[in-house]
């Protein structure tokens, strides 16, 4: 039962052909699902319902851990969208930029990415600052500030579902608060982010996202 969504989406995935390293099944099982015993049937049903109703789906992976999984959009509120997984994880984006996670451990509690958002919208480049909020071990919010450089790396053709898409690749190099990371955004002609690689925080590092196009 709890793999119903997996089963339903497996077809979509097969069509979408994402990350065809032959371990799609595994991907479903390992993804963002912490504990088989703790899977909440109500949540599973909800994720399935959203998926079958045609809500957008993304594949997310934790770069450092070689773990990946599917999330389906539950809410779009203004520029913000929140995706949820069967395993009890939620990930929120503002104009496609990662701004919050919940349930992953070491969660990104909130973020200010206003300058980057503007650059992505207008095609601008240059200096940008961003800040992230995390909970520390004593339940206090710690704010990390980063200075970033946003630049275009030019056009890139990417293949999703064996179809080729023309994208513009934007890089964002950041450092601050003792960390350094590099985010990448592949924007299609309409300026939508088709795929991205975004740093979530010290605990889990960078996450990769890709839209499932169906």
């Amino acid at each position: 039962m709890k793999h119903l969504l997996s089963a339903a989406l497996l077809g979509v995935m097969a069509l979408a052909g994402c990350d065809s390293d032959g371990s799609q099944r595994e991907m479903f099982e390992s993804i963002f699902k912490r504990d088989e015993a703790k899977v909440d049937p109500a949540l599973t049903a909800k994720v399935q319902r959203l998926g079958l109703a045609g809500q957008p789906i993304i594949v997310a992976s934790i770069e450092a851990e070689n773990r990946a999984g599917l999330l389906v959009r539950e809410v779009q509120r203004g520029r913000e969208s929140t995706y949820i997984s069967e395993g009890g994880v939620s990930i929120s984006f503002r104009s496609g930029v990662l701004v919050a996670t919940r349930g992953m451990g070491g969660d990104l509690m909130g973020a200010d990415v206003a300058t980057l958002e503007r650059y992505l919208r207008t095609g601008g480049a240059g200096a940008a600052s961003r800040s992230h909020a995390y909970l520390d071990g004593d339940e206090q919010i710690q704010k990390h500030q980063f200075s970033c450089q946003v630049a275009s790396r030019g056009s890139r053709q990417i293949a999703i579902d064996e179809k080729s898409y023309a994208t513009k690749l934007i890089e964002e190099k950041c450092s601050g608060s003792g960390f350094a990371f590099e985010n990448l955004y592949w924007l299609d002609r309409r300026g939508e982010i088709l795929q991205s690689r975004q740093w979530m925080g010290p605990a889990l590092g960078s996450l990769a996202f890709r839209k499932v196009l169906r």
Partner: protein
Amino acid sequence: MKKTTLNLCAPLAGALVALSPAGALADNAGKPKLSFYGAPGLVEMPTAESMPDGQLAVTLTHFGGTTRNTLSFQITDRLSGSFRYAHLDGFRSFNETELYDRSFDIAYRLVDEGRIRPSIAVGLRDFAGTGVYGSEYVVATKSVHPRLKVTGGIGWGRLGSYNGFTNPLGAIAETLETRPGNRGIEDTGQVSFEQYFRGDAAFFGGVEWQYSDRLSLFVEYSSDDYVRETQVNSMFVKSSPLNFGLKYSFKNGLDLGGYYLYGEEIGAVISYSLNPKQPPMPGGRESAPPVIYPRNGSVAAASWSQEWVTQPDQVAQTRKNVAAGLDQQGVELEALVLTGDSATLRIRNQTYDAAPQAIGRTARSLTQTLPASVETITIIPVVEGMRISAVTLKRSDLEELETQVDGSWQSYIRADIADASAFKFKRSDLAAGAYPDFSYKFGAYLSPSFFDPDQPIRADVGAELNLSYTPAPGLVFSTKLRQKLAGNLGDSARVSDSVLPHVRSDAALYEQDSDFEISNLTAEYFFRPTKDVFGRVTVGYLERMFGGVSGELLWKPVSSRLALGAELNYARQRDFDIGFGFQDYDVVTGHASAYYNFGNGFLGQVDAGRYLAGDYGATFTLDREFANGWRIGAFFTLTDVSFEEFGEGSFDKGIRLYAPVSWVTGEPSQKGFGTTIRPLTRDGGARLDVRNRLYEVTRGFQDPILSDRWGKFWR
């Protein structure tokens, strides 16, 4: 002590370190090593280093017939304290050929290390015990190389016993040149002010060479001559003042050391340290909270129709949806009052240890179930039927702040946190099934006892049944029943020699006579007499040794750091079988209490009044409480019972610890491991152990705890 917690953390902590490049647990370099006394030091001699703020360490050491078990805590950045339980095998004392010894140490770092100057600390060992380890020192430590630390100091008392010289402090006052002799056992437990820094002094010193991040080597020159162990008694032979050691630190907080001491002896140290500020899973790993739903598109709030509230079936459906939404989050809806643009709820938090998390999840769930016209949400957490506080949130603030970088702080300052006594509810507002409420819990219990010289650790295990019935808000009938299955608590042959009424010292008789016991059986009534005030009346079998009536009032304004309480009890001693019967002894006992939250995690409490043995006095308690729920504190009680009448230990004192389960698992939980360690339990300064004292019941849902833990609001 709570070894279960400690052991559990180890693998998790290891997993975390692997994940987190910033994991401070991995940072071993420069971390002070713990000595045979369980505090920062070389082998036996102290250094001027401190553990990281908040660090907690348990150390077990053995050499030459001496076993020491020490719990150390870095109380503040500079101040540390230790409690030690030592066994000296072959040490003649009061017709025994062994000695069990309890001692407290305290150390303070006066000066921080600079480029040239060393760090300097002053310390007192065994400042309130039997004086076996009584000593004082001033010590300096300097890193002369990233891998080499040099320590030198001067000691008095035991630390001035080898190669000692006339006390240089004699220049100040000649009386400091002689140290008064050790006192008898009946004087134990007194603070020995008249001994501090007196008598001969001696130099000690040594080096620590950090061979690698994990392995350290030590050489020290000890100024402790072990006179009573090696000359008065012959526990071992001492032929040299030099000690050598090596210590390996594992990633998970475990340290192991092997030593060669005093020219003849082999010794070993094992210690485990953890920091309450560094849980294995910072931020928790519980499932994502409900997502905030948009209202109907982008229409302004004012234009949303409030008509729904006049349609009974719509209101009924909304109630049902709200209750179901909260239930998903582990929160129970007690009552709901709806108007066209506001919702006022009473909730029971059955899941979260951090109150703001219960409030935050409740609020977000409501955005999924309340009609779009509802803008103001007032959440009233209820504990034991009492409305503890009223937290009013604007729905539009929630919508704005969900993923903002300042969302936590902004949502706290925009929330209105008020006293809840003014919010009255009608019976018809109550959610279906909220009352009557019946609950039960069946499980196993483990009841340990420490420090009996015949058998330092004893324990009973058995089955436990908790029943609770709440017919109406605030009225609770409950009981705890226990059936002993195995154990040796009853084996104690110690007969109380107390000259006071035996209000606590007959503990062994209770263990011997009881098998199936009614641990408690009470009717409790909790109420809100007026604004800022909470009340409790408890009648019945209050605790294992006493039954009677207990009444309490607590004044605690919702945002106040100060709380004041008054409690009055009539208590009668229960029969040793812990059944329905009573003994002859009865007493009127009660206290006036003041509680103050100093901020920075320090809580002070003073309880003054009459104790169970009829003695008058006061208890002083200081706790360090971490926002995540860890709590470590110490207390002592002084009453009009003289030290002589009190007997061994002189007065009641102890330390207490509480570790939340959520810290270990990273999942919300209202459970925890708690223990109070008293070196001795006697009859003076003994307080009635009535359950649900109001300060503990209420403070979680009030400030300053709400603000301390508000980071969890959005989690």
